[in-house]
């Protein structure tokens, strides 16, 4: 009896070991080309990590790093919206001997001196998404931007398809003068003629991406403009609380061109029946921008093959009119603050945002 159970145990563990080895072999076989032979350490530095978008992004970055077994150590630091802290994070990570740094430079050019000093010290440093100024090869190894102009063009094309004769557009973006909003506007203007009128003050209505301020701004804009055909916003989920204002004022929610979010998709599902004009088009919100940046950093640090892309292009995601590339998505069982367009599986995102 005893002998046989021991034998079984041994057999099982042998089998498990063999399978584990097998799995490692498979994993090794799947090492991506950007992961080179050299061993290296990598740090992801966030300027401001305090929202769900960032947490999903950070989790995506971590997952990408884990694909490369030659990254022996992975670290993360959050600047908490404090420029001083962001700068000291960058410098101290480099001082600790981390080989490659991926930086979300929220503070913009303010962090460039720190980035430059790290680059001059011979580290691989890849700022991404937020333009920090400077030049590739002089101030940093590589900048992986996101093409917000493309987002604007996608929205513009969709607006054209639903409103061929022109109409009134309301464009909401984040803090005053943020480059993302300006680029998106440029993209829309590339596509849309003068028959499309922006009713907001130029270049965009300032919302700071804050749901409460968005609600105030939208209240004023609805009162001021009798006819708004399309709302364009570069952060869809912050609009969710504000959109019912249209119903309160006895109007239908207009068409919406924006970026995706689970709460927004679910809101559309609940309200589209009662609001005949409520069409929805989203581009992917761009959590996967970090993947491209991490791939570049890893490739440069481990002597791997860099990816082909140098700019992250957010693909179109949902279209309530054609259902192409996807119909509007909603996962009611998961938190509203996740992004179904992200490569990171929805369940993992739910874990990343804490619930």
């Amino acid at each position, binding site marked *: 009896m005893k002998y046989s159970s021991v034998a079984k145990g041994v057999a099982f563990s042998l089998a498990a070991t063999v399978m584990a080895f097998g799995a490692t072999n498979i994993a090794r076989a799947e090492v991506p080309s950007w992961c080179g032979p050299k061993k290296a350490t990598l740090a992801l530095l966030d300027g401001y990590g305090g929202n769900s978008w960032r*947490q999903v992004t950070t989790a995506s970055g971590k997952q990408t790093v884990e694909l490369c077994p030659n990254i022996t150590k992975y670290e993360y630091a959050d600047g908490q919206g404090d420029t001083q802290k962001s700068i000291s994070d960058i410098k101290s990570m480099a001082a600790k001997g981390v080989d490659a740094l991926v930086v979300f430079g929220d503070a913009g050019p303010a962090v460039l001196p720190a980035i430059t000093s790290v680059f001059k010290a011979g580290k691989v440093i890849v700022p991404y998404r937020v333009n920090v100024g400077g030049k590739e090869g002089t101030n940093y190894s590589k900048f992986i931007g996101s093409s917000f102009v493309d987002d604007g063009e996608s929205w513009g094309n969709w607006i054209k398809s639903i409103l061929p004769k022109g109409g009134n557009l309301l464009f909401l973006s984040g803090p005053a003068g943020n480059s993302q909003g300006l680029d998106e506007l440029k993209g829309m203007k590339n596509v849309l003629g003068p028959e499309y009128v922006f009713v907001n003050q130029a270049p965009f209505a300032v919302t700071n991406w804050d749901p409460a301020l968005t609600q105030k701004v939208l209240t004023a804009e609805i009162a001021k403009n009798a006819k708004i055909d399309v709302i364009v916003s570069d952060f869809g989920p912050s609009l969710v609380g504000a959109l019912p204002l249209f119903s309160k004022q006895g109007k239908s929610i207009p068409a919406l061109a924006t970026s995706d979010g689970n709460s927004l998709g679910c809101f559309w599902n609940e309200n589209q029946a009662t609001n005949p004009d409520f069409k929805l088009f989203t581009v992917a919100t761009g959590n996967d921008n970090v993947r491209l940046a991490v791939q570049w950093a890893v490739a440069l640090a481990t002597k791997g093959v860099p990816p082909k892309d140098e700019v992250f292009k957010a693909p179109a995601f949902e279209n309530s009119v054609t259902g192409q590339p996807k119909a509007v998505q909603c996962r009611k069982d998961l938190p509203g603050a996740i992004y179904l367009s992200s490569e990171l599986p929805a369940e993992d995102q739910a874990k990343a945002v804490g619930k």
Partner: protein
Amino acid sequence: MNASPMTPDALPQPGVITMPVARSFVTVVISTLFLLVVCAIFAPSSVSWGALSGSLPFAAIIAIVGLGQLLVVQQGGFDLSLPGAVSLAVVVATHYPQQNDALLFQAVLLAIAFALTAGFLNGVLVSFFRLNAIIATIGTNALLYGAVFAVSGGVPSITTNLLADIAGGEILEIPNSIFFALAAMAFVSFMLKKTVIGRRFEAIGANPLAGRAAGLRVRIHRMMAYVYAQLLYCMAGVLIAGITREPTAFQGDSLLLPSVAVVVLGGTSLLGGRGYPISTVVSAFFLNQLSQFALTVGVPFSAQTIIQALALGFGIGVYSIRWTVNVRKSTGTKNVEENK
């Protein structure tokens, strides 16, 4: 503390308050009416019912935090823990229930418990350990933000439907948050003006030395100001959680300045003393309408901030002058202030 240097003209201080209509009230109401007329001429849509019902909830929030700040200012203090307190109430009311209506009640109780803790902490530090109010409350604010991060991780969460109905709903087309603000105003006014505890509270704020000489428990009253304030912040936070569908974890940040502004515009002296709850609430409406007007007229974002700052400076200027005259002529508070 010695109770002996009591000046005879310090005692009648509470009696001054029997004036039927405060001058600050008249000033604020006239300014507000003037603003409404300007709105009606230059931006008629900003005074349409649709626009008002959209923006009034935010006026209600400012009014409620303003009432909280008022009570602290009446005791000659400042409460800079407001952003943390409001944000904490917001995240507790959204993260704890996670869209489950059944847990909302417990969540609100939990938020109140946090508010009481923070309030007693502030109060004890300021009143018993005699720390500078600004420093003590900044410290508490940092602690509260620690709690905000512990609860939320800095991530917004969608509010429960029940709370959205209660705080964001409407009765007879009037946003419910207005009723909450009016109830808070009525309660604070009644307590301050018509109850013994309120009269003592106000007397101590006007002149703590005289209050102490009269045998009032100065420290307890001063401490409780911070507790009452926290309860009002908590109420505001829970309302924000209902009004905005997916509030961020830092929703209180933008409320600190308006809270002080409405207290000042409402005519309450920053040195403490007599408080004007109704004027404070009207000022909240004024300030909110002013920003809504700026938005509707479509002035650039930079100018919007400047307009509000100017309004604030104007308010402070007007009352500062009045305050000096008032004190010299009628109350003699200044003598005692100098003795401190």
